[in-house]
């Protein structure tokens, strides 16, 4: 069982969250020329890193906010959690 610290609600069980995938993926900016490749990278292509992975989680059965979680995909260690609009760096 993962324990995820929601930046709004504090430490909660994994059961309250749903998963939203890689948080480093950026939607191409509108109102400019966008190549098929850019769209592919946004919609389909994923690095699927082994090790540190920045990802989105939705605190569905809590505050219903989307948050960012930095987690190790092979040990499940969680290094830090952030609000969705906080900077990754």
């Amino acid at each position, binding site marked *: 069982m993962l324990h995820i610290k929601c930046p709004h609600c504090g430490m909660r069980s994994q059961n309250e969250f749903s998963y939203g995938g890689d948080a480093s993926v950026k939607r191409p900016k509108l109102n400019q020329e966008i190549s098929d490749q850019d769209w*592919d990278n946004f919609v389909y292509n*994923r*690095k*699927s890193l082994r090790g540190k992975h920045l990802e989105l989680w939705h605190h569905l059965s809590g505050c219903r906010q989307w948050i960012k979680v930095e987690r190790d995909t092979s040990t499940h260690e969680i290094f830090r959690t952030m609000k969705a609009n906080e900077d990754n760096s």
Partner: protein
Amino acid sequence: MQKYSIFNLIKNAFSNHINWDLAWKDPTPKKEYDVVIIGGGGHGLATAYYLAKEHNITNVAIIEKGWIGGGNVGRNTTIIRSNYMHDDNALFSEFGMDLWRKMSQDLNYNVMFSPRGIINLAHSDAQMNVYARRGNSMRLNGIDAVLLNREQVKEVIPMADFSDNVRFPIFGGLMQPSAGTARHDAVAWGYARQADSMGVDIIQNCEVTGFDLEGGKINGVRTSRGNIKVKKIGLCVAGSTNILAEKLNMTLPVETHLLQACVSEPVKPVLDKVVTFGAGHFYISQSDKGEMVMGGDLDGYNSYAQRGNLPTLQHVLTEGIAMMPFLSKLKMLRTWGGIMDMSMDGSPIIDKTHIEGLYLNCGWCYGGFKATPASGWTFAHTIAQDRVHKLNAGYSLNRFNTGHLLDEKGLGTKTWIS
């Protein structure tokens, strides 16, 4: 190679079975090969076998970081079926069914293929309609499909919950009588033994760590046991695909996720079909040893852990008990997990790549065991002839670019999110 037969079995019994040949050798890697297959799972081993058998290419190495059969081929729940609606999936899988039927003879190895039939349960009128449509599509492609009503399902699996007060009543089901199961380890070992006997080097405990390219073409592979020169590489590493793709600066429409399975304590024969729940992700069959073999959902978040988490298992077994209440009386014997190469439309990729000499085999999701023979056969063809066969033409990498997705379930991207 020593033939496995009743006569050899009796003969070797007199010497307490200590004089059997090893099933495959333990060679040290050569400096150069014509083809290197990365990954000694079912698909890698089958590919090497068909390269040798169908294309006469025997200067081949299979490079496996652990031991052959230690990956998903040894961790799956062995369901074999071809109950697909889309032509590309249906024809590919049905070609595979034919190879399954002949496999034990072909490999001189008993893979215990057991075509016991699979039933997908339906829990609403709408679902019955969808199944009727899929069944019709299957029959148009020459695949056996039978639509069962509630009473017919009850005859076959009376232990399912047919009482009145259930959340998901059983309306009927779609059956593929020729589907079934096989012994997964035997499949890996059978292919390995035959490939070895035709000259393929099976190199275990050897991890691929990088690639050598020259002018944009494959020129070699780097491993934990030294560099090997080779012009053609077949990448067949299932859940580790992204890790090796990164070394080639490729990002693929694939994510690695964890799938668990479990078996109960062995009980007397009670279930002689494979059955899937239609209102969630749960499926069950009974092994020859009597264990109930069960599985269902992915853990739900990217994972390379090769071991699962309790909430998903609990959720899956809740569905199982809703479908077959007697399961709640059984003790759990074992649970385990494997890392799955989940493709974005739920269908696999068997194709060439933009790098000359690099061939890609991945995206098998939950269903790659049944594909083992057809995947090996078509991948060997693709590598040997440097072009795809018509059976795997639909499994192209650029379908994600052109929009020709093979979205069997009509779920869009990330088919695993429910």
